[in-house]
């Protein structure tokens, strides 16, 4: 049976993922860490930075 922390952490992770605030890769471990209270401020910043979309490389005309 899930603890309340686990349940809410899963909801939070799903919402963050849906809003593009974390990457799918990070989301895998986030829920359990949230439930245990282990995500520190520096780690939040790293997670949020990782989720910032990188600028797409410009392609030359005609190139695939």
């Amino acid at each position: 049976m899930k603890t309340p922390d686990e349940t809410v952490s899963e909801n939070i992770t799903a919402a963050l993922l849906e809003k593009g605030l974390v990457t799918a890769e990070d989301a895998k471990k986030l829920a359990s860490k949230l439930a245990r209270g282990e995500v520190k401020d520096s780690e939040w910043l790293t997670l949020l930075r990782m989720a910032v979309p990188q600028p797409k490389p410009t392609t030359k005309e005609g190139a695939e």
Partner: protein
Amino acid sequence: MKLRSLSLQDFRGATVPVVIPFEESKNLTMVFGENGTGKSSIVDAFSFVCDQTTGSLKDRKTADETYVTAITGNKANLRVKLEADTGTWEAAFKAKAASIIVTPDKDVPTVRILRRSQILRLIEAEPSKRYQELSNYIELPGVAKCEEALRKAAKSALEDYNRAVAERHTAEKNINDLWVKETSPGTGAEDWAKEEAAKNVTALAVLKTAAETLVAKLEELERKKTAWQSKTTALTTATGVLTSAETALKAAESASEGQGSLVELLREAKTFVDGQTGLANCPVCEKPADKQQLSGALEKRIKAMESIATLSKAYRDAQKQETLARTALNEAATNYVKELRSSSVAITSSTLEPIKVATLPTAELALVADVAKTEAECLAVEAAISGEITTLKTALDSAKADWAKTITLHNAITTYLDVLLKSRDKVVKTEELNRRAIGAAKVVEEARKQFVEAELLSIGTEVDRLYELMHPEEKLGGIQLSLDSNYKQSLNLTAKFHTVADITPQSLYSESHLDTLGFAVFFAMAKKYQTAGSLIILDDVVTSVDETHLDRFIKLLHDEADHFAHVLITTHYRPWRDRYKQHRAPGGKMHFIELRSWSMETGIRTYCAKSMIQELREALAAKDFNRRDISNLAGLLMENVLDWLTVRYGCRLARKLDPLYTLKELADAVSQKELVKVLRVKRLKTKDPEEWEETLLKDRIDEIKQLSAVRNQVGCHYNFDGSLVSDGDVEKFGKASLGLADLVCCPTNGDMPDRDKTGECWETRSRTVKLYPLRTPANG
């Protein structure tokens, strides 16, 4: 999990070690004791092991927690041990510390303790304090911790963003200032800066370095020339001194008629004379002479000729100084000429603009550059070169400063432009990060609030259900718990009162209704968040309720107890304990522990309480036949059972101001013919196949009626008739009473049939004993 025992040593009231045993087969325990018998010590012992706190002492702000150790005990010896079928845990204070350690520290049972003080606080507190009372249940410690960290991260992201904006502003201002200083060329400061930064200043740097090198060389040439000139002056001076010394010496010699050399001769003669002993004659003329007189005469002559000697020494010194000055001048000249040659080569080979445009003494430069020329030839033309060199150096310095300024400006523009572009990029990134941090904080907060709201809603529904069970058809309830959106961690509690909804219950509910409301809230919380090993302790939560509400409360407790591993009740409310003892509640499911009065010498004392049936059964089986006890116990038991039957069937009894009826009156009331001829009990004999045994109660009640006098004659009063009653009649009365009680009461739980589940009869909770009929048949 099934509890086995709880051992206390030097803990609170346990001045003497005590073990509280639990019956593994029962998940309900009632600890009954009057005030000051040790109930709180037992409850606090659970807190000590399961929560590692001092329990009620911790909850009381003014309490001194050091008294968790028994007043006669030693903190180091304090031990609380909890034994269950799943393990044994022992708690003690850590050596020389206030912290509590449990061994082992894994899988320690979870305990929820509900104290009356909590109920009062919950009901009477302001919404914010009310939240605190329930925070243990509805808080999300893990998520809350991460949410706090996220807010810190968001704050940090905002600070980074503000810093980046400030950096960008400073860089823009610096570039603009430079642009304005350069008379605002082009269309704008940034475009100008980009153009300037794109320029290559490497060539200028090379020219600047070459100019610096050449200027350094010319400065060295100037130093060498100065040295040469200085040495020339020094030689001139030395030559003058020599000439003067020579002239003075010659003049002195001439004046002393050429006897300058005689001074030395006279010194040697005096030395000779002073060294002789026994000198009688002059060594030159051999005439008789006195040594003292002769030495004195020589001394006198020498002194007269000493000025010539001084001049002679000065002349010799001047000669030496002149020689040295000449040597130094030659060396300085050599150095100067050498520097002159190399400078000439450097100047003539330089391509620097100031040299190109200068009018150079090319012939003289060529001459000194020619190694075949002597120093003297070179020095002869040096004046022509050095004159131009000063002008040339000034021009080079000016050019060098211009180039340095251009390079410095370029570097500044490049640096500021770099800072500007980087800070712009940083602004974009930090702005995005800040936006995301705010978004994430909102997500976490909403999820947490949604959870808490949903939990409160679901708990509210359960609270309402529990409350309805305790107060059916009282037009109360409608309990709702909700977060106050205007405040952080503030909890509203509303209910209905007859036709009015959303009232604050404190305004209209009675005190006992508020008590049960608080109980319902905590119980619903504990039920929702219980785990497989959850214990719940109800510490003196019921103080004074009427009989009807007490029965409902007991019923609720038994209906809900199976949700927990164990329910422990402590109470000093005797009617509650008696409901079980008197078979008005399913005492068979309850383990009773009674506490005797406490003293420092005895500590906490426990004993197992017995039901009325148990007491009578044991009295009948005792080796020593006790007539009085058997009569008394049987009479009490029968009064209890018959009283219950008269209430159940609404039997007719004469009205009394104080409704206390005798055994005979009660038996007569039950014996009214419409009822007694159909009054019967069906008991389950076998489960599979289901087989029931039916017994009419008429004969049993008649037998009780016949023997009822025994109760007073033997069991209650002193009288002569009592002595006439035989032991056989006493035993018969006892056995008849026990037989009837055994028939009516559940063999497993001990309760009498009080549940109408089928509309046909009354049943016990176990449904193994059924009492017919449901209602007294109509007369006739």
